[in-house]
């Protein structure tokens, strides 16, 4: 009962402030799904500058990154938000994986330490979000517990969700599998890297956050 009351109050407070100031739009997902690539795409499209550094090695984003006052327009609609790029959430972090990816041992250990802190921060920030875009790699299996836990927590907090199936430029990608895994949500297939289908992503964003 207390949980339900808490959720209700959170929703009321969120809706109150949503109208007064910029909403917080979070990018969530497992590592290497393309959250920062999508953040860069959005910022380049609407602010003319990139937001963060990307890398093929997982956990490149290890701190919460915020780009304030992003305004996007479509026809006579306008949406203003603070874009929050979060570190990838995972249940395991092994510095040896970074060594295998080519980092020196000391650097790999530092990256692992920072990455664990990043995951904790990303989870803590869930409560701050008004809308969340979950960025999934469309070439990977969507039925992971991390994906289910992220989406389940957003659902439990009543936060609107849009799922992006990223990397559709790659041959192995499949949007259908993600749609089957999360049938209650809209899934938009894009290539954040190449900019394919990004217009549809903005339209969907208006529908979810507008």
């Amino acid at each position, binding site marked *: 009962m207390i949980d339900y009351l808490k959720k209700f109050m959170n929703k009321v407070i969120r809706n109150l402030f949503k109208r007064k100031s910029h909403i917080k739009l979070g990018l969530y997902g497992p590592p290497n799904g393309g959250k920062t690539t999508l953040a860069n795409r959005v910022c380049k499209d609407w602010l003319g500058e990139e937001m963060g550094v990307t890398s093929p090695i997982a956990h490149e984003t290890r701190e919460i990154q915020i780009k304030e006052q992003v305004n996007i327009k479509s026809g006579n609609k306008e949406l203003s938000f603070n874009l929050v790029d979060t570190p990838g959430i995972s*249940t395991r*972090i*092994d510095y040896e994986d970074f060594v295998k990816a080519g980092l020196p041992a000391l650097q790999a250990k530092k990256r692992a330490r920072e990455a664990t802190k990043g995951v*904790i921060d990303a*989870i803590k920030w*869930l409560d701050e979000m008004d809308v969340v875009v979950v960025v999934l790699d469309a070439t990977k299996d969507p039925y992971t*517990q991390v994906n289910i836990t992220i989406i389940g927590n957003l659902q439990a907090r009543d936060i609107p969700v849009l799922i992006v199936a990223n990397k559709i430029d790659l041959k192995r990608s499949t949007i259908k599998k993600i749609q089957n895994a999360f049938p209650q949500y809209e899934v938009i297939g894009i290539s954040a890297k190449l900019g394919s289908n990004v217009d549809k992503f903005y339209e969907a964003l208006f529908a979810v956050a507008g």
Partner: protein
Amino acid sequence: MLTLQLVPYSEIEALSSVGRIRKLLNLAKDNKIVLLQGRLRKEEEAELIKATMEEINDDFKGIELSVIYSEAKNEDFFKKVRTGFMNVLLGDRQGLTIIGPANVIKKIKKDPDKIQLFTSESKDKIAKKVGVKKSRK
């Protein structure tokens, strides 16, 4: 050697969220694969990931986590309400939660009907495969 530890829901139902997470995480840190009857709340799953991150070091690399949950698709409205009510009263005892240390379980692969644990007792060894199939309602 692989140790599978069965945890009945009755063992965690009286514990607080922190207590549940500590119990499960300690078992995983003890190199045991935990088979928990039922499942944690979504918020507890997120807290489990947070607690895991706080404990990662050179020896403990984290956990692998998966939940098998059979949602009856053709259940009528009253049955759904009854199940929801029972879950609120008694906790969610349906399904099975698998938690294992990342240095033992390489990967958990799940599709809606089955779950596969790829295990490796030490790095670079060929992964073993343990299959668990979900029984249909």
